[in-house]
């Protein structure tokens, strides 16, 4: 299940989605709003999400993860709107029979979501400036 949420992510509720009597290993990733990026002090973040395609592509990523690393349950929610330092911007949870699949599927989902979904992140800096962030993998390609 992939969803976009314009209100705070409720982690307890999402964790309950992973329940399965056959689950032995559960891996959860959370992306939090950090107070600093590339040496600049960040005050808050703004996520713009194009929901219809973000959801379709998010579901596709989760299905791919399940093909590569069979799991029992997986859920991902991504925030839209204005977020403060410490807020949870994205939550990915995977429960599997064993921990290896749980870790690998969870990592696959977050890695792909960061670069494939129509989601844009604007950082608001302490110096009053703001700017749209480019995904790490894209930035790496650009820089060499």
């Amino acid at each position, binding site marked *: 299940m992939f969803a976009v949420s314009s209100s705070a992510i409720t982690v307890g509720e999402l964790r309950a989605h992973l329940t399965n009597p056959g689950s032995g290993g559960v891996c959860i990733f959370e992306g939090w709003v950090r107070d600093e990026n590339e040496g600049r002090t960040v005050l808050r973040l703004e996520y713009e999400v194009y929901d219809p*395609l973000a959801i379709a592509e998010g579901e596709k990523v989760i299905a791919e993860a399940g093909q590569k690393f069979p799991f029992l349950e997986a859920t991902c929610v991504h925030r839209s709107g204005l977020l403060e330092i410490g807020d949870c*911007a994205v939550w990915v949870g995977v429960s599997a029979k064993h921990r290896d699949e749980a870790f690998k599927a969870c990592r696959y989902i977050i890695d792909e979501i*960061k670069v494939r979904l*129509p989601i844009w992140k604007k950082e608001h800096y302490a110096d009053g400036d703001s700017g749209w962030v*480019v995904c790490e993998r894209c930035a790496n390609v650009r820089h060499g």
Partner: protein
Amino acid sequence: MKTITVRYFAGFREHAGLGEETLQLDVVTAMDVFNETRARHGSTEPTGHCKVAINDEMADWTAKVSDGDTVLLFPPVAGG
């Protein structure tokens, strides 16, 4: 000429100063649409990491556009 609705997101929307416009364009591919809008709004954004969707389906830049299509222009993404 084709009637194409173009939707701009994030930095593209801010640069164009609007979220959507309907244009009469002499275009064949999604890339043609992108080039027309770049010329129109004086954008210097490289196409390398941009993406495009046609009528809410992700598409290649070489995909053909038809009269009445909506083309969505996505600047480089950054989820997570």
